[in-house]
């Protein structure tokens, strides 16, 4: 038996990966998986971390929350992993947290979620509501009006997003004309019925918190009943380049998304990373907000490991809070107190290529405030340049 005791060369740095390759949110999670592999490859090609290679131990939870606790234990006990990246929907993260807390492991979570959580064993690299829902609400209420129809997937994150949106609508003297929740596995016909209903109600815009496979259904149903995105767009903080690639640019064009990253972010760094990603993973692939968070969190982690000279979670937790990194979106920072990430909110509108034209952006990165109950409108929104005139007959 080969000894792995201290004295011999340390083996690779193992990172557990829990992204689903099949299931309702697999399309976004697959982009997170590829981003993780891409970042690990970059690091390994440059000589690894502390001379050690990054080894990904990837298990497939298939979007089933009941799989997550078992797979996390498996990663920790059988694969000797103490650092895990993954999870998408909140119920999957809630299943993993008790296990990582019990074993003092670390979870890096790269998906926007509804907030109201902190665990010392989790680093949250996706947006909190004050970084996506709030800017989106402000933008839409300012530029489109305050008669709003809401449609979402039936689980916790949409409820909370709609609560924030409802508050801001009422504050503006507006009206919530409709609030519909469809099951995560709802069929095309269900979305078609919802689109017909929306057409009848004729709101100023639609706020969508639909996730995963339902997103292409919704946008297609919307086009199918003849609704015009330039007059009455769908506004979302979950619809990304990944889902647009599935539904097609013709269906998505004109709709609006709030995110802390779009593939079109125009910096030399992002252009370079996107080009290299396409070169190694395929020219037809696109990046998105979840991809970017999954990508930069691996580099952030590698940086933390270099700083402490070890991959032990207790040591890493001494440097991760407060750590900054030049991500594709710009410089990000992990907050010392809430373990969430300072990110830069953007508003994008889908163009004919299925990419986002950035029509609004916060002047600087915004601190995540996961525990805020009553939101107030950010100052930068009225300055956003929607360029709506170019879209034609906006009233």
């Amino acid at each position, binding site marked *: 038996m080969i000894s792995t005791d201290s004295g011999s060369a340390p083996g690779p740095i193992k990172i557990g990966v829990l992204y689903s390759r099949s299931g309702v949110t697999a399309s976004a999670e697959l982009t997170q998986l590829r981003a993780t592999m891409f970042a690990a490859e970059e690091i390994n090609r440059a000589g690894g971390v502390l001379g050690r290679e990054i080894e990904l131990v990837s298990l497939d939870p298939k979007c089933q929350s009941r799989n997550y606790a078992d797979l996390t234990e498996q990663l920790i006990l059988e694969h000797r992993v103490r650092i895990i990246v993954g999870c998408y929907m909140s119920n999957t993260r809630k299943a993993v947290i008790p296990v990582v807390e019990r074993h003092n492991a670390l979870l890096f979570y790269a998906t926007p979620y509804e907030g109201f959580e902190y*665990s010392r064993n989790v680093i949250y690299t996706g947006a909190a509501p004050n970084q996506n829902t709030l800017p989106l609400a402000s933008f839409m209420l300012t530029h489109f009006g305050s008669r709003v129809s809401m449609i979402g997937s039936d689980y916790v994150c949409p409820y909370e997003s709609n609560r924030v949106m409802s508050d801001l609508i009422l504050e503006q003297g507006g009206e919530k004309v409709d609030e519909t929740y469809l099951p995560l596995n709802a069929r095309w016909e269900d979305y078609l019925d919802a689109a017909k209903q929306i057409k009848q109600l004729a709101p100023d815009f639609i706020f969508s918190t639909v996730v995963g496979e339902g997103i292409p259904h919704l946008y297609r149903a919307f086009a199918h009943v003849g609704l015009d995105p330039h007059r009455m767009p769908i506004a979302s903080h979950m619809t990304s380049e990944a889902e647009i690639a599935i539904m097609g640019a013709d269906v998505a064009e004109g709709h609006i998304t709030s995110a802390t990253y779009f593939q079109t972010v125009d910096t030399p760094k992002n252009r370079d990373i996107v080009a290299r990603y396409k070169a190694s993973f395929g020219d037809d692939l696109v990046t998105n907000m979840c991809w970017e968070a999954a990508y930069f969190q691996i580099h952030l982690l590698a940086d933390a490991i270099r700083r402490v000279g070890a991959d032990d979670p207790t040591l890493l937790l001494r440097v991760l809070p407060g750590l900054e990194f030049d991500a594709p979106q710009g410089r990000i920072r992990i907050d010392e*107190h809430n373990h969430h990430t300072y990110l830069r909110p953007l508003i994008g509108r889908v163009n004919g290529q299925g990419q986002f034209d950035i029509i609004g952006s916060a002047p600087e990165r915004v601190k995540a405030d996961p525990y*805020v109950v009553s939101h107030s409108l950010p100052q930068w929104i009225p300055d956003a340049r929607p360029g709506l005139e170019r879209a034609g007959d906006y009233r």
Partner: protein
Amino acid sequence: MKHSTEISPILRDLRSLKVVVIHPPDEDREELLAQLQRIGCATEVFWPRVDSLPMDTGLVVMAVRPETLSLNYPWLGTNSSPPVIPVVTYENPITIEAVLQLNAFTIIPSPVRSFGLLTAIAVALTQFKASRLSQRYIERLEQKQAKLRVIQQAKQIMMETRGVSEEEAYQLLRAQAMLKREPIETVADAIIKARETLSF
């Protein structure tokens, strides 16, 4: 249970809540203060003695420890006492008894975790408010009941001494009260006292 978008003002106003934390310096206190900061409450820390609470204290989070059992907190148990959430480390009968003395609506177990504090605060503030309201309601009912008793007694005296009906007795009382610009129960009280004075 259908979720509701009607959020309690208690949750909305958390960012203006002032929390007094009475807790020895240890990991539990660090966790408490860090989570209160994330929630956005203002905090002030004491240990072990606090003879008077700072102005505008909306909530007290307080370690119940063997060393606090003998301490007297004069601001506890008064009409203006804020709600208290005990942080408990022991579950022996004496500690539980001390917790019960605080009239708490919820507790925080040690070791303190960040998760659960927000819900505990919401439950404590909501139940405290509801309990204050029902206490005030009971007090008002009791006062009203006492007035009615006095008026009833005075009417009885009038009926006996003047030989009038109950309705006439009431009208006489009412007329006196209007004349003297006093509440009817004050007049009634004076009649009862006069009778007591005369009949010794």
